[in-house]
């Protein structure tokens, strides 16, 4: 079986990891597309080590779709180079929407300490 990891999964899980210890003004924190690519590569690496195949779906088309389909969760910032959580949404909202139906191994990949390290160090506890 092959896991398909969309940009929306990467964005959501990256933001969960970045924001999980933050209290207020969550929308000020961002994750860049470059960081998401690195994060995704680490997630794939983690899953490969567990003997699982995974493919990242990263393209401008998929990004446009994400911003359209999940416009209630995400907005672009920093002149279109980064993603942030929309005001009014919480980390719990992200967890319910994006971690409930993930395959367990994929969720663990997103939460693993080594994969999370590639996200902005000052934002990750």
């Amino acid at each position, binding site marked *: 079986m092959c896991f398909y990891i969309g940009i929306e999964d990467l964005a959501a899980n990256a933001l969960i990891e970045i924001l999980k210890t933050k209290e207020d003004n969550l929308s000020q924190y961002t994750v860049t597309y470059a960081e998401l690519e690195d994060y995704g590569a680490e997630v794939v690496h983690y899953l490969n080590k567990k003997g699982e195949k995974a493919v990242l779906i990263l393209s401008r088309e998929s990004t446009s779709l994400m911003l359209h389909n999940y416009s209630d969760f995400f907005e672009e910032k920093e002149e279109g180079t980064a993603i942030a959580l929309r005001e009014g949404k919480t980390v719990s909202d992200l967890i319910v929407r994006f971690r*409930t139906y993930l395959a367990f191994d994929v969720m663990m990949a997103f939460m693993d300490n080594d994969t999370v390290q590639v996200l902005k160090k000052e934002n990750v506890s």
Partner: protein
Amino acid sequence: MCHNKKLKDPIYGYVYIPVEYMTDIIDTAEFQRLRRIMQTSYSPLYSSAIHNRFVHSIGVFYLGGIASNQLAEEIVRKEIMKKEQVENIASVYRLACLLHDVGHAPFSHTGECFYKNKNFQSVELHERIAELVGSSLFAEELNKKEAVAAAPHELMSVIIGIKNYGMFLETTENKEFFARCITGYKYDDGTIEKQIKNCFISMLNSKVIDVDRLDYLIRDAYITGFETVNIDYRRLLNALTVVCHNNKFEIAYKKDALSIIENVVYAHDAEKKWIQNHPVVLYEAYIIKHIIMNLNEKLNTENKRLFSEEALSREGIVLNKKVKVSLLCDDDIVYLYKNMFSDDLSLEYLNRQNRRHPIWKSEAEYMGYIDGLGGEQLNEIFDQYIATMTKGEFKDIPSFTVIDETYIKKIKKELTKAKAEMKAAGGDTRKEESVQNNIQGIKRRMAFCLRLQKFANENNMDCDFVLLKADIFNSNFSKEYLGKTLIVFKDGKTENVYPIIKVCSTLKAEKMDGDMFYIFCRKKKDTKIEGIKEFCKRLYLDTVGA
């Protein structure tokens, strides 16, 4: 003296082809390859649907000739451009009509997604086009097209077209226009010439009416025997004109075409709803994609791919395991999976006795049995769950999750692991929250699969199911771009121009949101499946209640 050859077409009669096109394009191996590419994937439903991309390309060339002659005449008559100038544009347009599918993949649309790279991007295809066209400005524009990329077969057709038949295009300008005709990448409206070129582009690549769509709608109905509305293509194309609307030259149709435009939309809706979205056709595509993915896994290396420009050429390419392919077509795929790389699913393609069958057979049945069973909140849970279960089917990427005893065991193991992780969370509240939600998701998956298992037992069949996502049908009458089609009413010497939505009452269809899915099962011979309504209700309630 006649410089044309003629081909007989069952729909249009004689199609006249310039001699040089016949000898230097149509007779070449790269174009003849299209005889071995099936036009549609409808043959599981309509056995006669065995027409190929070759006849379709000739048909589009024919209709493109009518359209371009009419447009050129109108443009000259209205003194928008000089005859010689518009004739050059029309000539490139007609060449694009002939070659618009020359790069099509085996099994047509089912196979074309494999032209993209491993991240499902069209970057390399755009780069190759930029290289062949040779315009830095166009290259810059293509670099920004990923989000609105043309279909992969269109990009490949531009590549094969310019690479093999560029001598007919001569200039960079013509090559760029040729590429734009096939991809639908219009010019930014600037000069009158660009606006007129955009008019021609929209007659080959449009969301509403173009010669490509016209031919396949007429041809598919004719060959399959599918009873649909008649399309008077001559009346439609002879009603073409160009108007200056909102300070820009655009395509418009004289009022004579109104009824035909409606018929085109009806015909397109019918084909889409009753054939393209039929579960049997969807399942056929699922099997073919699986077969191709299997072949790619066995044959592709880092630098050499089965679905590539090289594989479409005469010289061909040598892949992994010393397999050589050239002028890639349906036959190559069939040979490879039948004789070298077969598996259960590819054998299912050959032997229909063993094929899975849809439990419900139409969108209407789905709407009756499942849609709206619970309230809004429960529907949202169910919809999200189904979206995840069919997740692999992002755009063209097929999901191969088979729900069987092995899969159910896998979910049970997943639940055990998740519960263990919950115990080990050690007070990390966010981790606990994540795992707790994930456990709920696993339980829903489990409930869904166990209900399928029970259904299999009740109907004396193996627990062996496949889920395929499908789009809810949306009529083209509800599409915004149709409403913008311009209609001309002549009043003496004055042309009164209106968007069709203003003058045509049919354009009131409501847009439907959402997806649906089909479940395919392996029912035994002579077994009639019963209790579908109750099964669907139980499936829904078990999943949302877990």
